[in-house]
């Protein structure tokens, strides 16, 4: 039936909008601390990088969410509405989780890099070459 499938699409679109905004807000209000540690006092670079990653997250999540909307199944009963909705929203939520862990991996990589460069003092040969 035509009205049921439009209801499914509307609920799915509302869900992906709410989920993306919630996850992005949670992740990128916390990640500022990471960025300030990674960039070690360079405020403008830290804030800009945080914003760039936020934009990337929004684009990727929204883009694939919208792309994933279409279904070939026929929807006639309330039971089928539930089945198709849980399939679609579940798939999108798993994708959001993977994207979240990918972003966390990038942050922890930066933290590791910062730690390593703080621990090892510059080699004396590099100073000789410079002077």
């Amino acid at each position, binding site marked *: 039936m035509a009205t049921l499938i*439009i209801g499914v*699409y509307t609920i799915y679109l509302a869900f992906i909008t709410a989920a993306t905004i919630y996850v992005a807000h949670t992740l990128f209000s916390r990640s500022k601390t990471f960025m300030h540690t990674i960039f070690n006092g360079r405020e403008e670079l830290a804030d*800009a990088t945080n914003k760039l990653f936020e934009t*990337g997250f929004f*684009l990727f999540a929204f*883009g694939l969410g919208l*792309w*994933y*909307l279409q279904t070939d199944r026929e929807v006639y009963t309330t039971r089928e509405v539930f089945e198709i909705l849980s399939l679609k929203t579940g798939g999108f939520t798993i994708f959001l989780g993977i994207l979240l862990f990918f972003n966390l991996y990038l942050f922890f990589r930066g933290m590791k890099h910062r730690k390593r460069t703080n621990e090892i003092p510059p080699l004396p040969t590099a100073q000789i070459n410079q002077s």
Partner: protein
Amino acid sequence: MNALVVYIFYIILSLWITIRVGNSLHKYGRPWIIYLIGEENLSDKVNDMLLLGYRLVNIGYILFTLMNGKPTLENMQSVIEFLSIKLGMIITLLAYLHYQNILMLYIFSKLKHKYKWQL
């Protein structure tokens, strides 16, 4: 539903998204360009040209792929599917280009840091 109305709606919506995202990236990419080039005047010029190239590529893509897949657009369902899938493809393309740009910033700053390389 009239296909022309859907097309115009689609073009306006995707142009709005592209231009808003471009302005945001232009604003927040500026500190990085200044960091890599080191000269503020030249950096702003480079940044403006990058924005222009971004707009040309993406607007061209939006118009070029308008009738891909031969959309029927005869009822509400096909209209929603058309808009959602097209916009999804465009936003995913923007995300791909954006992550590639972040990768390039990372590579350039590493080169600058490690080998004292200058743009």
